[in-house]
């Protein structure tokens, strides 16, 4: 046995202290997996969109309406992230589109290794047919998901009218990381003290070129702009 530390590993270790400068992100493993996810998605010919919002902002409803509008011309696949239950995936499957439910077992966000598994399942569901558009619905949470690249091409942050227009100022990291901010449930504007101007101003301070759109899944208002945004981003 070794006298210095009492360990059993006598032959192959030494006790000279060694200082190693690492300077590597603590999220390095996630970043690497996200890069490989992105390649995987591109090999499938698809564009991937990561949907981030607080619980209940309308992510699944947006997907339901989007699928109804596009399913005849665009091959869509969906990865659903939730802490528990298969409910959201079932809502998507009811629209006739393949959906994988990832449950995080308590974790408050999706990460790239989880999505990697989801992509393989989605690929299996396609039976060789492939996808044009893959939606990843993140766990409802306006904080954690911002930190984790999943390998998406476009990050969309949803903010619904009842949540209030002060959210970009309160959750700057999340809104700063967005490629597009979607204001949802605008049919409710008459009932809430929600200022479009405040969102525009605060979001602009965070990221001057941040794109902003407003829509309602209930009335259909603003949906055309959203659909043509998607259409422009497809690899066709």
């Amino acid at each position, binding site marked *: 046995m070794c006298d210095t530390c009492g360990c059993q590993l006598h032959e*192959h270790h030494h006790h000279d202290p060694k200082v190693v400068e690492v300077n590597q992100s603590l999220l*390095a493993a996630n970043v690497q997996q996200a890069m490989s996810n992105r390649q995987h998605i591109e090999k499938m010919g698809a564009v991937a969109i990561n949907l981030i919002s607080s619980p209940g902002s309308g992510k699944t409803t947006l997907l339901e309406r989007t699928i109804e509008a596009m399913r005849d011309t665009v091959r869509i696949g969906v990865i659903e992230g939730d802490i528990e239950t298969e409910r959201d995936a079932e809502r998507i499957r009811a629209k006739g589109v393949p959906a994988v439910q990832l449950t995080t077992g308590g974790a408050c966000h999706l990460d790239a290794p989880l999505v990697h598994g989801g992509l393989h399942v989605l690929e299996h569901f396609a039976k060789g047919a492939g996808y044009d558009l893959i939606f990843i619905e993140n766990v409802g949470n306006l904080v954690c998901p911002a930190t984790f690249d999943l390998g998406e091409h476009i990050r969309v942050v949803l903010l619904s009218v009842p949540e209030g227009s002060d959210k970009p100022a309160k959750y700057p990291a999340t809104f700063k990381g967005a490629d597009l901010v979607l204001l949802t449930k605008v049919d409710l504007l008459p009932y809430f003290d929600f200022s479009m101007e405040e969102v525009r101003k605060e979001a602009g301070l965070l990221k001057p070129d941040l794109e902003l759109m407003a829509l309602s899944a209930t009335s259909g208002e603003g949906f055309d702009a959203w659909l043509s945004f998607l259409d422009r981003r497809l690899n066709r």
Partner: protein
Amino acid sequence: MHELSLAQSLLEQLLELAGKHQAARVTRVVVTLGPFSGIVQDSFAFGFNILKAERPATRDAVLDMETPDPEYICLECNKVALIPFPRQSERLDLARHGLAARKCPWCGSNRLSPQGGTELILNQVEME
């Protein structure tokens, strides 16, 4: 919010580094947790100290955490403000005295926009 899973991935990185450098154990780890990274020092240390005990190679690792002062731009006067980050234990005292809101040191406005500060970095590892 996800301090535990971050501590877990740090420990995996440490085991890999120890293997690469043929070291038997890690004695000290220095990390930077950005002030706007969403990671709370106390929770991160708590998770790290529980999980490190699972492996002999990390059992004695001491965790050093650095959090740089957060930087803001004041939306009223456009000046840069560096405001020390209160420790977890000081926050309640600040709240009790109505001082929880950070204010611009130049003009007193509370309309401060955070700049950067989301980094999570493994800087340095000591091993033997």
